[in-house]
Structure formats: structure tokens, C-alpha cells
């Protein structure tokens, strides 16, 4: 019999385990835990490497993984997830959790460390404004944000975005800007007063990417391997913490197990799990259960435990749009092969007109295969290849997350055959917002047009939440208390994004992690 069992090893499960271990409690983590199948042996800049070596295995792969978006043009996934070495992140997900979906495209992971294995590592604190609809305040999370910041090693700066991202005294210096980002930032600083009056603020991103050494981990070496090689030491992923906790014997980790449901037996719970190796059923007894399997899977386990095939739950996800833009002065420039290939800058648009706050990430495009851009250019094939060579060095992409409330949510329920059914709602992006963004980028020296905006599929924001929301006074099934306890299920706690009643337009990972620690703190304070 285990005291505490955590289901899942992603951002929330690992953070909860970290806090339990801080408190001297040894939890057991039950996980499917797929590992990378290949780790390319590249020890130099990827652009140098590919000038000398054949890269078929790394860029396309024997199973044609790199062609995923070629074969599914109407349902393209983030390019990083199509890289053969990253395949493990989303591999077998529809086998473990079959989904029937309409107007939604769920991306799920059963890998050790979860979806964060392929994340952009953006780590942003929520403020009281972000937490308006939550039963907690930013001050409830600040201790845990600080603890995590110390564990992870976050690069960034307390700059114009501090009032949105929160003050962090342990930040490492920001990563080097690419030439494109550097120009954009200089333009911002020149026009800062005017832009700030319009509610536009630009600053350094907060990234779980080291710019300095930390605990034996090397800092970012600007080799452009972010898309092609998993487990880079300078990008934090929950697996780093998990490995350490396993090594220090502070958690018990049981993988190859897919948790299906729980049953209550007097004073304890019995988890039913299936071995992914031989499909045998395994029963695990525990006193307290911590669900950290992600917003969809935690809710699925809850529905399956009650054999509830009727209730429809809400599923939230930030809608995301991408707007590419060029810096005309950089057309024809040498490709900056040593630029950091993910977020370079953040932009906050605190719009009075829309009465909301939008967070944009400005990304370099040096990481993905150049072939990913071929279909985006409008001319003939050989001309598009020339444009890839000449225009991409001047191109940046602004990725903007839009806030999502319960009225925009998708609905989901569980079928008797174990399949989940998700029905999304068509979302319309406000044209005025896109026009505003085009004007903002123009002021910063970037050129684009509203027709170039790429609207991500419903579900491709990959900021899922809202399935088992926390409230001040839960009074119905499938809601949780502010301490994460599931209504009517004493001893069953939820710690992942399921708890979020809304998803603000800001990366939610850091808050999911801090909130998981807050709930772990509550559980560890309980007697017995």
C-alpha cells in the first residue's frame, strides 16, 4: 500500500513529486513513460553538420515521421513534434487513449516527462489579473514559483514585462538575441513611450533554457538542435527533475503502466492499471491519489471510475494564431545559423479596446526543416526555393495565444468502449485584432499582412485545462476544491491543468507546476 500515488510524470506530476520529496514524503509515480527511440549523435551546429552528413534519419526518418505534415495538410501539428527523434513524445497516444473528435485536434503524450519534452520552455507567472476567475491569488503561488525557478534555472530579465510576468530575483541573464530580434528590440526601445501608451510592451522571454551553467548542466550553445535532439541539457524538462528524484531514491517510479480507473475500498483506493507490455491488469493500493495525467486523461480516469458515460465535461485550450513577418532590410542576408531557434522576445498587448491582455511570442525560424516553409510561399516551385534561401533569414513569426473561457470550450465525454469524444466549437478570430497586430509589427519594423495569418487548429494551442475546475465551494461532481480535492471523492486530488477554470492568454505550464506544488503542500500537511 502506497501513501501517495501520482498518475503521470509531466509538468504537474513531477512538480508535485518534487514538493513531496522536499517534505520528506516518498510518492510513487505510475506512468506509461515512453522514452526516445533515437538520440542523434550530433556534437556541432546542425547547419554545419548537414553540410557534411546525410540527414535523412534525423529529418525524415525510416517511418517517414518528418513527413507527418506533408500527409496531413489540413491538420498539421507543430513541426517539432514531427522530428523522428521527438516521435516518442506523441507516439501511440491514440492507441492508449482513442479519441473521436470533431472540430478539435487533441495532442497528447504518454512519454516520460510528457508534452514538455517538446515544449518551448516558456515559464510565466500568473498575476492576480490572470487569476481573476480562480479561487486562489498570485501570492498563494509565489513561494512555489520561486522554488521551481531555483530548480529549473530560468533565463530572462526583469524588464518592461515584469508587471505581467512577475518579478523573479533568481533569473539567469537572457539568451542572446538573433540579429532579427535585436533589431526589433532596438526599434521598440526607440519608440517605447508611444508603444506603451497604446498598451504594447516588448521584453525578454522567461525560458527554462540555461544561459549559464547550473547543477552540472551546460548553458545553451546555439547549435540549432532544439527540433532534432531530445534531452538537450540546457532546456529544462520535467524528466530532468524526475531522473534526479529517482536517482536520489526520493520517488518510486513505475512505468509501462496505463492507469484506467480507481475504486474505493473502505479507507483506501485501488487503482486499476494496464501493462502496456502484455496488457495484463495490475491493481495498486494507495491512501491518496494524485491525478497528474493532463486535463483530458485525468478527467477520463475520473469518468471511467464512476462508469459515467453521460456527463459532458468542458475542455479548454488557448486558441493560437501565427503571424509571419519580415524585416525588409534583412532580405538576402546570410542565414544566422547560430541563432536560438525558439522564442526570442515576448510582446504583451494590453488592449483597452478588447478589454483583455494578449501574449505574443516572437520566434526565430532557424530550427524547422526549410521544407516546412515550401508550401507557405505563393510562387512556382523553383521560385519558392529561392525565397526560402533569401527571405527566411529576414523572417520571424509572432505566435499569439488568445484567452479562453468556459463559453468557448469544447465538450467531451467518455464512450462505453473507452473512447473519448471531443466536440470543439468553431472559433472566429477577430479581424480587428489581426489588423492591430499588423500595425504593431509595422511600428516595430516588421512587415506583414492580415491574409498571412495562420490560425492553428482547435486543440493545437496545447494549453489544455478546465475539465475538473477548482472552485471556492465545489457543490457538484467533477469539480474540485481550491486544494484540488475532487468533489465527493475524499483522498483523490487533481494537480494538472484540469483545475484551471479559464485559461488566460499566457503559457500555463509554470502555473500548472506551481499550483501542483501548492496542492502537494496541502496534502503533505494532512495528518494520516
Amino acid at each position, binding site marked *: 500500500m502506497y501513501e501517495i500515488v501520482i498518475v503521470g510524470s509531466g509538468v504537474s506530476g513531477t512538480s508535485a513529486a518534487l514538493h513531496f520529496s522536499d517534505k520528506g514524503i516518498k510518492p510513487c509515480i505510475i506512468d506509461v513513460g515512453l522514452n526516445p527511440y533515437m538520440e542523434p549523435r550530433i556534437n556541432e551546429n546542425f547547419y554545419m553538420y548537414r553540410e557534411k552528413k546525410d540527414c535523412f534519419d534525423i529529418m525524415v526518418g525510416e517511418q517517414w515521421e518528418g513527413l507527418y505534415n506533408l500527409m496531413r495538410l489540413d491538420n498539421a501539428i507543430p513541426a517539432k513534434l514531427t522530428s523522428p527523434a521527438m516521435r516518442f513524445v506523441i507516439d501511440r497516444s491514440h492507441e492508449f487513449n482513442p479519441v473521436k473528435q470533431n472540430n478539435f485536434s487533441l495532442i497528447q503524450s504518454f512519454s516520460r516527462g510528457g508534452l514538455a519534452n517538446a515544449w518551448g520552455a516558456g515559464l510565466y507567472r500568473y498575476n492576480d489579473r490572470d487569476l481573476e476567475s480562480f479561487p486562489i491569488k498570485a501570492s498563494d503561488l509565489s513561494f512555489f514559483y520561486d522554488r521551481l525557478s531555483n530548480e529549473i534555472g530560468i533565463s530572462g530579465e526583469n524588464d518592461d514585462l515584469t508587471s505581467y510576468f512577475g518579478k523573479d530575483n533568481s533569473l539567469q541573464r537572457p539568451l542572446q538575441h538573433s540579429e532579427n530580434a535585436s533589431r526589433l528590440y532596438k526599434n521598440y526601445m526607440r519608440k517605447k513611450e508611444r508603444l506603451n501608451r497604446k498598451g504594447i510592451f516588448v521584453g525578454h522571454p522567461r525560458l527554462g533554457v540555461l544561459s549559464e551553467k547550473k547543477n552540472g548542466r551546460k548553458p545553451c550553445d546555439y547549435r540549432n538542435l532544439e527540433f532534432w535532439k531530445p534531452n538537450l541539457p540546457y532546456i529544462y524538462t520535467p524528466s530532468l527533475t524526475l531522473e534526479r528524484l529517482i536517482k536520489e531514491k526520493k520517488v518510486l517510479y513505475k512505468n509501462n503502466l496505463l492507469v484506467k480507473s480507481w475504486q474505493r475500498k473502505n479507507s483506501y483506493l485501488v487503482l486499476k492499471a494496464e501493462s502496456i507490455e502484455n496488457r495484463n491488469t495490475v491493481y495498486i493500493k494507495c491512501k491518496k491519489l494524485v491525478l497528474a495525467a493532463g486535463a483530458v486523461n485525468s478527467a477520463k480516469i475520473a469518468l471511467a471510475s464512476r462508469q459515467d458515460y453521460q456527463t459532458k465535461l468542458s475542455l479548454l485550450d488557448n486558441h493560437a494564431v501565427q503571424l509571419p513577418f519580415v524585416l525588409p532590410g534583412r532580405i*538576402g542576408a546570410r542565414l544566422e545559423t547560430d541563432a536560438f531557434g525558439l522564442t526570442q522576445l515576448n510582446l504583451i498587448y494590453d488592449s483597452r479596446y478588447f478589454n483583455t491582455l494578449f501574449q505574443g511570442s516572437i520566434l526565430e525560424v532557424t530550427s524547422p526543416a526549410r521544407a516546412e516553409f515550401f508550401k507557405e510561399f505563393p510562387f512556382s*516551385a523553383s521560385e519558392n526555393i529561392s525565397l526560402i534561401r533569401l527571405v*527566411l533569414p529576414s523572417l520571424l513569426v509572432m505566435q499569439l495565444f488568445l484567452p479562453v473561457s468556459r463559453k468557448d470550450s469544447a465538450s467531451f465525454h467518455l464512450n462505453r468502449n473507452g473512447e473519448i469524444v471531443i466536440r470543439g466549437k468553431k472559433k472566429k478570430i477577430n479581424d480587428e485584432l489581426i489588423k492591430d497586430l499588423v500595425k504593431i509589427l509595422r511600428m516595430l519594423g516588421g512587415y506583414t499582412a492580415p491574409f498571412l495569418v495562420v490560425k492553428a487548429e482547435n486543440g493545437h494551442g496545447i494549453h489544455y485545462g478546465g475539465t475538473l475546475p477548482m472552485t471556492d465551494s465545489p457543490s457538484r461532481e467533477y469539480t474540485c476544491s481550491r486544494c484540488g480535492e475532487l468533489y465527493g471523492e475524499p483522498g483523490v486530488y487533481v494537480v494538472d491543468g484540469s483545475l484551471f477554470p479559464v485559461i488566460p492568454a499566457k503559457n500555463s505550464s509554470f502555473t500548472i507546476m506551481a499550483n501542483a506544488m501548492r496542492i502537494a503542500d496541502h496534502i503533505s500537511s494532512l495528518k494520516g
Partner: protein
Amino acid sequence: MDEAEKIYKAIFKNEIPPLVKQRFLKASEELFSDYSKKNIEEYKRALSKISDLEALEFAARRKSRIPLLIIKFRLMVYMAETVPENSRFFINRKDKKFTGKLSVLWIGMKAVWKYIKGLFLLRML
């Protein structure tokens, strides 16, 4: 010339490296079996009848015609990028800011001619 050679030539104006050809043909065989007979025949007709495949693909893409031709062009780009000798097609190693901007303008002008030609070829097919 076979389909791989023709498509590569249309995109890169060069002879296809043997490794790229081999991979393109293997991928074609394994990935596109679910296209309809009509789509396959239309594609084969395009390959055998039209010499300027690049102009044809451009117009077909704009008009949402000959889907197999469009996807095979894209496939070829993915395959071509993986070999070291093709790095020069995709990566600008030297600053060419002045000539680069002129090239982009020239590409825009050339596109009009290619599109008109492609529309004509599409009608011929």
C-alpha cells in the same frame, strides 16, 4: 526521364542525386497508395504530356487541381533537403542583401508569366 528526375529538374534545375531519387520513389510507393485511380491517371498524364512541370504545378496549386502532382513536389523538397550537396539551395551562406532584394522583385515579376503559362498548360491537359 522518370517521375523523380522530372520533378527534381522542375524544382532545382539540376540532375537528381541518386540517394534522393531512391528515397523519393520509395516514399511515393509507400505513402500515396490511397489516391484515386482518376488522380493517378491525371498525374501520369501531366508527367508524360507536359514538359514545363513547374509552371503546371504552380497553376494547379492555385486552382486546387492535380493533387498528386502538388504533393509529390512537396515530397521532393523534403527529400532533397536531407542531402549535404543540396544545402546551397536552402541556406544563404553569404550576405547578398542587394542582389537578394533584386532577386525577390524579379521572382515576383516572373511569377506572373509562369502562372499564365501554367494556366494554359492546365487547359491543354
